[in-house]
């Protein structure tokens, strides 16, 4: 019923009918993410040094914070999505999220030296990230025509990754000049973060969703119940199920690097290069894959990403990979991210009504990220009991079985031109 033109409000119909227009909002949101990520990665890059050399916390007490925020972040994301959909306040909620992260940077500056509030501000930053993701993606989806959504998300993710790669570079250029300049790095990071937030507040327009169109006949009311009811839709539920089931069989990249390191007997000093390699492939492929998704179908590219992941699992089984094989693994991992991250949002856009876009996205991302976390914990448990080869085998078989089943379920659940 949602595919019938009569039920679709005029603005949405325009977005659906026209081809190829990507609003300036998409680039602007990309820049917001670029600056925010740059600021964040500046801090993250020097954190191990700062924590051990300056604060003297000792690295191990630090991991605790990381696990803690996962749960609260998921809850905040759902609440944030719902609030954003009420009256179409995507921009305001996203600004709150970006604002929290900016405040946390100033907090780091102010609290430099005292341990307790310092960790508190790190948590605050991550909560901010939880709040802003869904409304930001909703704004991207509402700012581009439907035919080029893959491209729009590709543009955004590319800019986002540029920031993430520049952050450590800026931080270490500063640190090379000022070996004890951690608080200086926090000051610069806060400034960069302010620029990102300013672009959002000053230039990003809050895209008007369907609520402004009174002729919308079946426009669902925005409520927690309405958001939950999204899951009863065949198309939405098939996406959520696909994302969760496949997410369950997805190894976090940290584990991939560990397996590579274990098998290739890699010098630990190359470890960070593995992250860099994956990020570069992601950066290079995010836009082409977005374009490809627009042309050949988003579900197809999304599933193709998991085919890349299956291929990577197969390569991981090699017990003594050479440099070329390691590179191939990173390329496949980068391709997997490029084919699934933004593309999943583009795919979900087509089935989530505009009025529930933020909450819908929040549901999809929460489901996939939670199942990924569970998958990673399972991977770790299998590794501990039976070794790395066994855990890769289990995930390979699991993914190889899940992939065709998800393909069938997506084909059934989604409207024809997926």
């Amino acid at each position: 019923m949602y595919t019938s033109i009569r039920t679709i409000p005029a603005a949405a119909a325009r977005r659906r009918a026209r081809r190829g227009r990507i609003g300036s909002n998409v680039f602007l949101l990309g820049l917001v993410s670029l600056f925010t990520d740059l600021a964040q990665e500046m801090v993250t890059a020097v954190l191990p040094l700062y924590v051990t050399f300056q604060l003297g916390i000792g690295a191990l007490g630090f991991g605790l914070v990381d696990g803690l925020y996962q749960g609260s972040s998921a809850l905040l994301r759902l609440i944030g999505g719902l609030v954003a959909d009420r009256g179409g306040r995507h921009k305001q909620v996203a600004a709150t999220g970006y604002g929290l992260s900016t405040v946390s940077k100033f907090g780091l500056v102010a609290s430099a030296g005292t341990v307790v509030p310092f960790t508190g501000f790190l948590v605050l930053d991550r909560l901010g990230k939880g709040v802003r993701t869904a409304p930001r993606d909703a704004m991207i989806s509402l700012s581009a025509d439907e035919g080029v959504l893959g491209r729009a998300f590709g543009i955004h993710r590319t800019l986002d990754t540029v920031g993430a790669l520049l952050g450590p570079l800026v931080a270490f250029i500063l640190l090379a000049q000022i070996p004890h300049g951690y608080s200086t790095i926090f000051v610069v990071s806060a400034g960069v973060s302010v620029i990102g937030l300013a672009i959002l507040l000053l230039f990003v327009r809050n895209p008007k969703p369907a609520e402004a169109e009174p002729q919308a006949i079946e426009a669902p009311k925005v409520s927690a119940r309405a958001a939950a009811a999204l899951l009863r839709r065949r198309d939405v539920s098939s996406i959520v199920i696909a994302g969760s089931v496949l997410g369950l069989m997805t190894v976090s990249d940290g584990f991939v690097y560990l397996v590579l390191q274990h098998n290739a007997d890699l010098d630990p000093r190359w470890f960070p290069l593995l992250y860099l390699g994956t990020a570069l492939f992601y950066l290079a492929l995010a836009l082409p894959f977005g374009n490809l998704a627009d042309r050949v179908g988003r579900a197809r590219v999304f599933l193709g990403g998991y085919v890349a992941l299956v291929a990577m699992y197969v390569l991981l089984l090699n017990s003594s990979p050479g440099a070329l094989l390691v590179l191939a693994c990173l390329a496949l991992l980068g391709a997997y991210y490029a084919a699934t991250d933004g593309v999943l949002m583009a795919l979900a856009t087509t089935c989530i009504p505009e009025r529930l876009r933020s909450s819908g996205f929040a549901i999809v991302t929460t489901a996939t990220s939670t199942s990924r976390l569970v998958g990673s914990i399972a991977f770790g448990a299998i590794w501990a009991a039976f070794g790395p080869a066994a855990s890769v085998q289990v995930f390979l078989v699991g993914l190889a079985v899940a992939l065709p089943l998800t393909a069938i379920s997506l084909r059934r659940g989604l409207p024809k031109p997926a």
Partner: protein
Amino acid sequence: MSSFRNRLIVFVVLVIAVTVVSVVAVGRAWYREPTHNAKAPAAGRASLARMVSSPHVIFRSTHDDGTYGRLVVGSLAHPGGARAATRLECDRVDFAAGRGICLHANHGVFTRYVSAYDAIIFDSAFRPLRKFNLGGLPSRARMRSDGRMAAYTIFVAGDSYAARTFSTRTYLVDTATAKPIVQLERFTVRKDGKVFRNIDFNFWGVTFERRGDGFYATLGTGGKAYLVHGHVGSRTANVVAGVPPFVECPSLSPDGTRIAFKRRIEHGLAPVTWQIAVLDLRTKHVTLLPEKRNVDDQVEWQDNSHLLYGLGEPNAAETDVWRVNADGRGKPQRVLTGAWSPSVVSGYTLPVG
């Protein structure tokens, strides 16, 4: 529209303000940076020979006097007394039987991508003999009393599925070849006689026995920190029975009867802190020492009854070395200002050449 112009003006002003603040902050920090002081000259051979001829201590200087970060020879008998700076730059240092190990972090651009952490093996005249890459942030370094083997611990990022945490790795290294002998993570560990294995095993803080190939270290797993007793030759280690699981960074007394360590104290959500304590290996009795501040260091035994450790204000470049009685009596005393990572050395004759 004019409102767009206004917003653009606001944005440009903001960008300028951020740039100015950043430049000022960077410039100010640059001038304050202790490593930007003119380098003090290294001590001449004569003064170095005099300093090392009697019992002395070598340490990392954190003094803002041109010796910052360098390896310095000083005396515990005269805390404010003469010091001789060497050319070596070390974050952690230990020395025994004519061989030293110095861990050094270059805070460079590529630290994140290609590690710039080095270890240097040096001789009794502080000449570098071997240098090798560490692959992670330096944490602990210890030289065995025969000078033939050293142990070091590094932090490695991204070792865990919870991204962005980091774990430790500990290596034993042959000082003659600078080649790693083995990584402690490869050892077979037993607890109560049974093989003990977990994916989250982390080892840190090796301390060697004076004789034989035994050592003690911390094994971290599941939030606990066990004291393990290992043997290099057999690649095995046993969790020492009857010892509470909060023994971090052990340090064996010269007479081999006690272990000084930092006791982990949890504070809920806030990061853990540590208090130094001494474990009697025979009775397993733990004595907390009267140092109330947070000590994150592998304690060094000055002799069988005194302990040395580094302390600094958070976020301050300067640190001091303090001393406390190993029996829990008396008060801590500051013994070296502007110092870190002390290593106690008996006197020797500086080699010729």
